[in-house]
């Protein structure tokens, strides 16, 4: 990334990242030397100091992450308690769906299915009590396996996992549509 707004790129990247991002990673993704990244990170951090800014840049777990400032928590609480704003995000819902239908399942398998690192979302779902570790995979490099909790069933109003909507009801028309879509798609 030469002659282009590096600071903007870093901000954009930190904005969408779900986990702390290390300087090494930033350097790799943006193809810019680490020292340049560091300079920009400091500039961003400084620009966030003012009272008129609502987020701050924190160095956490070996990486950088944007957080909303703690001083605004009372307002965020009110916002959070409002039913319309406290839905699960699309990412969280997707991840929960994968765990629900494919349990027991490891973090890395979820990431493979979603195509993005899903550790932060998995942690969030754990904190909320929707999913929990079930035990380890067999074998030498055993990964922790996750499944949904009894609390998850309660919140969803389900008697058991067998009452999850049957996927077959959604699947066939979609495959058909997809197949047709591909047929219709111009590959020229």
């Amino acid at each position: 990334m030469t002659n282009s707004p590096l600071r903007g790129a870093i901000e954009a990247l930190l904005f969408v990242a779900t986990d702390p991002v290390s300087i090494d990673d930033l350097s790799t993704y943006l193809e810019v030397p680490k020292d340049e990244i560091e300079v920009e990170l400091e500039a961003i951090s400084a620009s966030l100091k003012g009272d008129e800014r609502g987020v701050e840049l924190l160095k956490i777990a070996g990486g950088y992450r944007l957080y909303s400032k703690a001083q605004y928590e009372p307002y965020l609480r009110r916002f959070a308690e409002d039913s319309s704003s406290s839905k699960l995000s699309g990412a969280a819902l997707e991840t929960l769906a994968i765990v629900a239908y494919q349990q027991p399942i490891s973090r890395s398998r979820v990431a493979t299915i979603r195509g993005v690192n899903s550790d932060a979302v998995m942690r969030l779902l754990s904190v909320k009590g929707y999913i929990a570790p079930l035990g380890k995979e067999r074998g030498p490099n055993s990964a922790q396996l996750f499944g949904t909790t009894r609390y998850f069933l309660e919140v969803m109003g389900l008697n058991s996992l067998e009452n999850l909507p049957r996927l077959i009801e959604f699947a066939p028309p979609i495959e058909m549509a997809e197949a047709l879509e591909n047929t219709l798609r111009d590959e020229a």
Partner: protein
Amino acid sequence: MSYTVKLDLYEGPIGVLLTLIQGADLDIYQLSITDLVNDFMAEIELRKRLDLEVATEFLLVAATLIEIKCRKLFPTTSLLDDGEELAFFEERDLLLARLLEAKTYRDVSSVFGTLIELGMARYRREVGFGIELAYLVPDPLSHNRADDLALAYERVMRATTPEVLSTHHVTPLPRMSVLEAREILLERLLATKDNSFEVVTSLASSKIEVVLYFLGLLELYKLGIIDAVQTELGSITIEVKGDLDQLTKATEE
């Protein structure tokens, strides 16, 4: 993207051909619609696949050309009575309105494509309150129904496995031959003494494999390698006849 016409009379995009005919720059009497259609069919044969957009455009143009030619060759309105003529005009106006409407939406849809592309390039923060503020949110899941979960699952699975789904309109090739099925079957029959007819389905992982194993079983029966015995209204049992050497020889033939 557009189909290219290659005739003695005219060479170029088919849409332009229509414009030329309409503008009387080309003589419709000189144009062989049969040649036009034959060339198009040959082109499709060559491409081995039908692009629906190209085909739609071709059909529309070809149909319009046929209509123009018919009207030139057989002037008929004088034969219509007033009522029929009125009905004819009404039908024509409806067709005209529909063609224009469809064209309008097709043109505006290109803007949709651009907007969606731009929208997809802008990313939202999907973490929401995130882990550090998760305690603030009472119970986000209670606002979702079980169906939302199923839809989300379906969405993500489809998004990550497009290649698998795209081949659904093609009949998949069986991964093994009847011969292979026969050998697997024989191996299995020799390995276990007591064999029920269900072996045909128990070995198979798809419908097509059930058929293959069944055909394999029939061949083994035909070759005299196995026998099928059914007790009255009971299950069918498969019995292997002869010794192993003979059998291997038989299957190698």
